[in-house]
């Protein structure tokens, strides 16, 4: 909401200077977003008179002017404006002036060989309007040599405040003035509403939709002459960025900004029959003032005559019946539209307007008559004509709201002790009426008893937002100032801080920092991906109805697509080695699940003087990350089984899942499927993995005590076995079988070599396993070692393995 300082001062009698006013506005909740004095940038522009104008010797479209700018030394100026002529009084920028519109510094120069000093300016060059057809033409009596901005009344700071949605009353300059007066910055001037002696009956208006438009007041003014608004009105409207249109339209805009009261004027000549507020009819269309056509429906309120809809009630008028220069008789509408209806209609039509902004927040329902009178009076004064009597169709909701209030509530809720008298003053200055008693001591049968205060506060009609005692506390506190609220320590629990993070958060924290320690960088990718990307990982369960773009449309079912896109961006930037991970949610149909995803691409190790050629990643690098991160997450890594059944995102032969039992998948990993890599534009070997943190069983907290343990006294013994097994036997199966051959003695079995080729039968492979045997009280005897070896060989035999000779 913009207004100028002089405009504010028509409502507020104050000695306060601009900085005081700005600070007060922000302090009371009307945040100042900006302040600008248009005169500041126009200091070097003066009123000047063209003494002579001659054709430029070298250019048809240019003229050489002699310009008197008041110092007795007329200057030669080359000018291209078609309206430049001897006798014109305009605005002149002297040498050194900065043209506001383009930042150009004016200096003495030669244009087509003719000296030129300074510039005669257009409105657009001074950022005072859009006109650029020629230079500014001022009245002939304008004082040559004077500062133009000061003479034109532009030395008037424009203040822009942000109005919160609850404060419709401050969407008018008067409401802002009232708030400032309450803050102690002056006195609110009384408003004198003109008494209109109406001539003739009021217009034929009615409301057939008392729900959406409970009240429709109107007058006509006959015999008006529409034209340009007076200078003072046009200047104020322009200063705040409203384009003056015509007097009749400008009057409605001015009153809306001045008093927060939206109005609409209709050209009576365009109306057929009575003007009625009614529900829209299905399919009915209206061409609005913004040039767009809207289709209304029966939930919306419209203003229509016998033939057409002329107004989307309370939001925007129609093009057809708006006031024009030809208008001689107008109907002024001053209605009350129900805020909820306006909000719904506005949302449905995605149509915003200054009127909607005010009606949907709730205009003052008690200001219809006055608003109409002020408007009719202004029309008559500025456009002539005679006003009719008022037609008052329907009734605005006027039931006064009363709030019961104990002034002690202020201390209780806001923590600041404001004396009851001061609270009363604040409330009254904001327009509340306060009745009832303050808290007091009463002697009942001689005994002193504290009686709580009990005020009945009547809310002013323009404060739709206030309906409970906390609102009154808020009013008091914002006027007193939040800086008066004492900073009060929260009571502290004795002792040191207790753990407060959730188990999920602790798990995520450990996984995150483990991944970072292992050389991966954490990315945060969008939660939404494209439909195509979602389809590549099995499809998403949630698709946005109103996505911001097709790329950000489906809630991700997997962290992979986001990581793969980030990988591609890094590849495009030439990153040689990419290790990325993300910790976030996957969005399933039933719930959101925490997951970690990672991608390894490019070089695992760069070429080096020791290591030789650069190395790429393999599926086993993905497996290593998965196991390390699962371990960090607290999964029972030793009990996990590897199944070669990862999702379709992976290479079917070089991927796997890690499971707890056959059903619970904790992670999948592997080489990315080549077609997915291609879809994401990735080159070279790309491996990836995803860990489903929600599937990891919570660790039971059993206190801090560990299971008792003493390192064995005797050293472990190692024995190597090599088995020839059929190609199809999985290494993990053989290792498990070997390890299980003697559960007491064998503490570890580790595969350390795999061999096919010479000496190994076709279709077979040799797997070498190092077995660690841990003796207990005494060393193994040869017989015991032989027995263990036999058991190991027997276990391997069950899988078709034979000891390699």
């Amino acid at each position: 909401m913009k207004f100028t300082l002089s405009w504010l001062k028509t409502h507020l009698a104050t000695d306060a200077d601009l900085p005081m006013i700005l600070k007060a506005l922000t302090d009371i909740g009307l945040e100042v977003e900006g302040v600008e004095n248009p005169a500041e940038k126009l200091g070097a522009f003066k009123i000047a008179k063209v003494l002579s104008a001659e054709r430029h010797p070298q250019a048809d479209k240019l003229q050489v002017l002699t310009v008197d700018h008041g110092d007795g030394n007329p200057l030669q100026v080359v000018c291209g404006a078609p309206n430049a002529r001897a006798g014109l009084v305009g605005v002149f920028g002297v040498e050194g002036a900065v043209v506001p519109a383009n930042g150009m510094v004016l200096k003495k120069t030669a244009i087509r060989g003719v000296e030129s000093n300074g510039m005669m300016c257009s409105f657009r060059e001074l950022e005072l309007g859009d006109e650029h057809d020629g230079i500014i033409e001022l009245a002939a009596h304008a004082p040559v040599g004077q500062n133009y901005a000061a003479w034109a009344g532009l030395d008037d700071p424009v203040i822009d405040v942000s109005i919160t949605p609850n404060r419709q009353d401050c969407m008018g300059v008067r409401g802002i003035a009232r708030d400032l007066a309450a803050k102690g910055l002056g006195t609110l001037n009384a408003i004198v509403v003109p008494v209109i002696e109406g001539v003739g009956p009021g217009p034929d208006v009615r409301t057939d939709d008392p729900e959406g438009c409970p009240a429709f007041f109107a007058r006509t003014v006959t015999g008006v002459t529409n034209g340009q608004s007076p200078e003072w009105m046009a200047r104020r409207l322009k200063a705040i960025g409203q384009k003056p249109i015509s007097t009749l339209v400008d009057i409605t805009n001015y009153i809306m900004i001045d008093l927060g009261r939206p109005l609409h004027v209709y050209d009576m000549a365009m109306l057929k029959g009575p003007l009625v507020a009614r529900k829209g009819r299905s399919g009915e269309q209206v061409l609005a003032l913004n040039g767009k056509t809207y289709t209304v429906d029966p939930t919306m309120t419209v203003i229509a005559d016998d033939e057409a809809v002329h107004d989307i009630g309370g939001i925007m008028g129609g093009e057809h019946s708006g006031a024009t220069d030809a208008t001689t008789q107008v109907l002024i509408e001053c209605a009350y539209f129900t805020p909820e209806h306006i909000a719904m209609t506005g949302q449905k039509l995605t149509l915003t307007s200054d009127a909607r902004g005010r009606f949907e927040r709730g205009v003052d329902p008690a200001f219809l008559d006055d608003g109409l009178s002020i408007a009719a009076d202004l029309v008559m004064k500025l456009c002539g004509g005679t006003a009719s009597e008022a037609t008052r169709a329907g009734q605005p909701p006027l039931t006064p709201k009363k709030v019961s209030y104990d002034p002690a509530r202020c201390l209780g809720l806001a923590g600041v002790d404001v004396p009851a008298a001061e609270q009363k003053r604040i409330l009254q200055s904001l327009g509340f009426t306060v009745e009832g008693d303050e808290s007091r001591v009463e002697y009942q049968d001689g005994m002193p008893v504290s009686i709580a205060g009990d005020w009945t506060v009547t809310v002013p009609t323009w404060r739709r937002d206030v309906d409970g005692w906390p609102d009154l506390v808020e009013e008091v506190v914002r006027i007193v100032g939040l800086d008066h609220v004492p900073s009060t320590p929260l009571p502290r629990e004795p002792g040191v801080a207790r753990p407060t993070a959730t188990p999920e958060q602790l798990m995520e924290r450990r996984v995150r920092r483990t991944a970072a320690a292992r050389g991966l960088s954490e990315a945060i990718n969008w939660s939404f991906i494209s439909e195509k990307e979602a389809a590549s990982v099995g499809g998403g369960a949630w698709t946005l109805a109103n996505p911001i773009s097709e790329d950000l449309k489906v809630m991700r079912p997997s962290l992979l697509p986001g990581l793969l896109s980030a990988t591609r961006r890094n590849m495009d930037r030439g990153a040689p080695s990419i290790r990325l991970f993300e910790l976030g949610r996957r969005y399933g149909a039933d719930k959101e699940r925490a997951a970690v995803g990672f991608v390894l691409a490019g070089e695992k190790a760069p070429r080096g003087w020791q290591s030789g050629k650069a190395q790429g990643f393999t599926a086993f690098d993905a497996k290593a990350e998965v196991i390390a991160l699962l371990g960090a997450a607290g999964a029972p890594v030793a009990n996990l089984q590897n199944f070669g059944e990862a999702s379709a995102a992976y290479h079917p032969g070089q991927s796997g899942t890690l499971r707890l039992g056959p059903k619970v998948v904790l992670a999948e990993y592997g080489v990315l499927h080549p077609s997915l890599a291609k879809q994401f534009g990735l080159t070279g070997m790309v491996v990836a993995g995803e860990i489903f943190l929600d599937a990891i069983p919570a660790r039971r907290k059993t206190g801090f005590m560990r299971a008792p343990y003493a390192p064995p006294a005797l050293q472990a013994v190692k024995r190597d076995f090599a088995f020839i097994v059929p190609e199809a036997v999985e290494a993990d199966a053989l290792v498990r079988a070997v390890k299980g051959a003697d559960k007491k003695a064998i503490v570890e079995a580790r595969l350390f070599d795999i061999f096919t080729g010479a000496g190994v039968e076709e279709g077979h492979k040799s797997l070498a396993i190092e077995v660690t045997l841990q003796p207990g009280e005494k060393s193994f005897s040869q017989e015991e070692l032989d027995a263990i070896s036999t058991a190991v060989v027997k276990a391997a035999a069950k899988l078709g393995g034979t000891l390699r000779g």
Partner: protein
Amino acid sequence: MPPFSCSSRPAKARGDTFTHCEKTMTEISALKAGLLADIDAAATTDALEALRVGAIGKNGVVTGLLKTLGPMSAEERLEKGPPIQDLREAVTAALAARKAALEEAALTAKLAAERIDMTLPADIGPQGSVHPVSQVMDELTEIFADLGFSVATGPEIEDDWHNFTALNIPETHPARAMHDTFYFPQNPPGKAMLLRTHTSPVQIRTMKDQEPPIRIIAPGRVYRSDSDATHTPMFHQIEGLVIDKGITLGHLKWTLETFLKAFFEREDIVLRLRPSYFPFTEPSVEVDVGYTLTNGQRVIGGDGDAPGGGWLEVLGSGMVNRRVIEACGLDPDEWQGFAFGTGVDRLAMLKYGMNDLRAFFDGDLRWLRHYGFSALDVPTLSGGVGA
């Protein structure tokens, strides 16, 4: 006892000039001098070993002399023994010393030969990083843990009741228009599913699930249909909620002051509280923090009204609206409290000096390494929450 015998084998060492079994004192002195000189001059361990064998080996000259002592009478041995013993000790010591010296020299030579260029690069392995948003969330969790706030979470795909209605934002409320909400078409009866526009629904879920007193923070992703230089359709918020008896705006003020001082690790944090409007709080307060322009950068700290200073909006907050407390099934006459919410990404930018929000979600490794944190930069109260 072995029979007395003189060395009859030809000695290899110079001592072989002494052919008699017994020697005079003079001869022994000469022998000693000769042997010590030879040992000192031995150039290799092999030469030294030959000298050792020739002198104190089984058939060595010194061994031979020692053997002459056996048959002597006690008096004679007393007279002739010491020089011979002295000879043996001197030779043994010289051999050991020379051996050590030769070995030392050999090691030195070996080490010299093994010298390599230690300016060659060493591979320290890949360097990972923690995203600034995660780091700042950990920092906030730490600070609020000390103030007694637990962490709470909630779904990002919410229904309109939790995101709006329970927060006193009815369907026609203009405040709904302030939130550019992402909606889903698939809706269970009576609900409109959406992406939460703020972390405030976690307030509702907590109040419904948990008995007061309540002190929680709720960090997480939030979504608004907004995208420009300073807005991304997804960003991070942290919500705070206190519900207790006798909680006032003064407690809110203290909590925010304390938190911001701890977060920015500056005592000169100045807050400016401005009356504002949120449907779910009353009174509502927006909080600005003062900054000072330092080398063209906004550095948090100092009075924003001072010359060269200014104010940055960092928080929205207020006393929880009675209607919200009621909607959660609590008695607003008994329980009262405050809530606040702030942007985690924005806090990270203000503290660590990033200026482009969109880079947060681009995954550019160069950016992640520059603005990210080491795995072990875990925020702690004892070590400071900043890194």
